[in-house]
């Protein structure tokens, strides 16, 4: 399976996915991933390469294995077979300590926000900084408030998670994921349970993160409108396998029966794709953020 963003790959129902050497700038590689729970096969040989500064949207119906895939990416589950490589490192071979260090590269926005309900919004966002850095309270306050302002929820800093709306909780969840300035951001069903207007706002936010920080994003969703608005590449999961992979147009043109049914049922407006012409490509973003990334890597090595 190739990974060029303008190439659609249709995977036959019976044909297994083959692992291929990833291109150079590919921070996440899923290689022939298999996951079983007892007798139940949930992921059946998933192979997916995610390039830097790219937004890959994994779509699929309920029970297709999307959330299981995402839990593997961040090391919350161990594969039955296959590998997950992050920056070339097989995460299954890592100790707890090494895994926790690697997790700093990731930020995760959970489906149900996963805000700590015993802490205020401010403390939620400050939590990873207090846990993983030696920053003083003043510096933490500054960074947290900056992130809350960027996500336009600074007015809710003192409130408890139970006192804010779903849309605001999602923004706080994103702020908490971003405050450590991760290189890879994973969104698990970012628009589920939200009204259509808030859903589109969240999509805009994901786009903003990509354009502003050059973040590599992996978005798990069953919302086709989201997929059309934010994806550089879409991978559709059907019964634990990738049925189609490529730019959003590829999903529209797919002849795979399950994919066609999904597209028809989602009633997505194909003209949305026309608005995407103004988007910067992952290649352009990579070039734009290459310098700042080098600087960041250098400072990490020095520290």
């Amino acid at each position, binding site marked *: 399976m190739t990974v060029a963003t303008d190439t659609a790959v249709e995977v036959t129902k019976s044909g297994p996915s083959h692992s291929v050497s990833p291109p150079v700038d590919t921070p996440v590689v899923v290689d022939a991933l298999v996951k*079983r729970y007892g*007798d*139940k*096969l949930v992921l*059946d040989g998933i192979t997916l390469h995610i390039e830097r500064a790219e937004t890959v949207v994994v779509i699929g119906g309920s029970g297709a294995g999307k959330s299981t895939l995402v*839990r593997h990416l*961040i090391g*919350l589950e161990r594969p039955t077979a296959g590998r997950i490589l992050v920056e070339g490192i097989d995460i299954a071979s890592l100790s*707890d300590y090494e895994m*926790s*260090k690697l*997790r*700093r590269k*990731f930020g*995760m926005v*959970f*489906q*149900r*926000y*996963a*805000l*700590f*309900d015993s802490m205020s919004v401010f403390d939620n966002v400050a*939590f*990873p900084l207090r*846990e*993983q850095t030696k920053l003083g309270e003043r510096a933490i306050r500054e960074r947290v408030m900056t992130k809350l302002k960027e996500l336009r929820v600074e007015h809710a800093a003192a409130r408890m998670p139970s006192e804010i709306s779903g849309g605001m909780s999602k923004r706080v969840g994103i702020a908490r994921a971003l405050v450590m300035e991760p290189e890879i951001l994973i969104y698990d069903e970012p628009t589920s349970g939200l009204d259509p207007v808030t859903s589109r706002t969240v999509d805009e936010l994901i786009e903003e993160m990509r354009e502003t920080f050059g973040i590599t994003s992996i978005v798990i969703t069953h919302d086709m409108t989201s997929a059309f608005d934010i994806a550089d590449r879409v991978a559709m999961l059907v*019964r*634990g*396998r990738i049925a189609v992979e490529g730019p959003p147009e590829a999903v529209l043109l797919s002849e795979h029966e399950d994919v066609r049914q999904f597209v028809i049922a989602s009633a997505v407006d194909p003209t949305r794709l026309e608005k995407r012409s103004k988007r910067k490509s992952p290649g352009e973003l990579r070039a734009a953020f290459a310098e700042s990334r080098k600087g960041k890597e250098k400072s990490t090595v020095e520290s």
Partner: protein
Amino acid sequence: MSDGGDAGGGGGPPTDSRGLARRIFAPAEEAIEELGILVQMAMRTLAWTFRRPFRVKVFVAQLEFVGVQSLFLVGLVGLFTGMVFAIQTVYGFRRFSAENLMGGVVALSLSREMAPVLTAIMVAARAGSGMAAALGNMRATEQIDALETMAVSPIQYLVVPRVLAGVIMVPVLALFFFGVGIGGAYLVGVVWLRLDPGFFFDRIQALMDKSDLVQGLVKSLVFGYAVTLISCRHGFYAKGGAEGVGLATTRAVVWSVVGVFMLDYVITALLTTV
């Protein structure tokens, strides 16, 4: 992709001997699995107890939750237990004119059995259920996963402070239970039934030994550990949404109470020479 569905090929008749054997041994298999999970959690908890950073703030909050917030309830149960025991002892011992032994008998039974067992049951019902519900809710709302993704060990952050608080506060509460229970027995025996106060305290001193208090404290320490560990286990690995949290809470209380009685027998048998 389903891989054949249920074993045995769909609602097999009872003639399927393998299926039948599996069903018969299922409870034993589950019990062994459960014990395995509990032992594994105990080992992880032990390992994380001595690793930095120490969660002092969370630990103090749990001391308050397990100890201070249970004080009134434990005191109330202790008072009435002491009062009931006093009436029953006076009633029984009056048959052979030995009612003046009441103070010592009540003190003995409170220190060796009633204080540690009833305190542990009260802590299981109040704090244990609360722990299971809180952790179960955190599991259901992905807060435990979120901790892990932020490179924080959920065992160290959530389980260790709770178990330590149980180990420290249950013996303290049991001592409090004992004191209030003796007070209750004094109220009934001396104030109401007009027994001699000198006899009351003298019999306590005569019948009670240091080893009785030690046995009570050892029991309450072990019960505190068991109740909090079992409660955390059920909350931590809760499955499903609200229903799963409810089930975890019920299981936490039921298995904590069963565990307390089982351990009570083991410790009594080990520490008592008959």
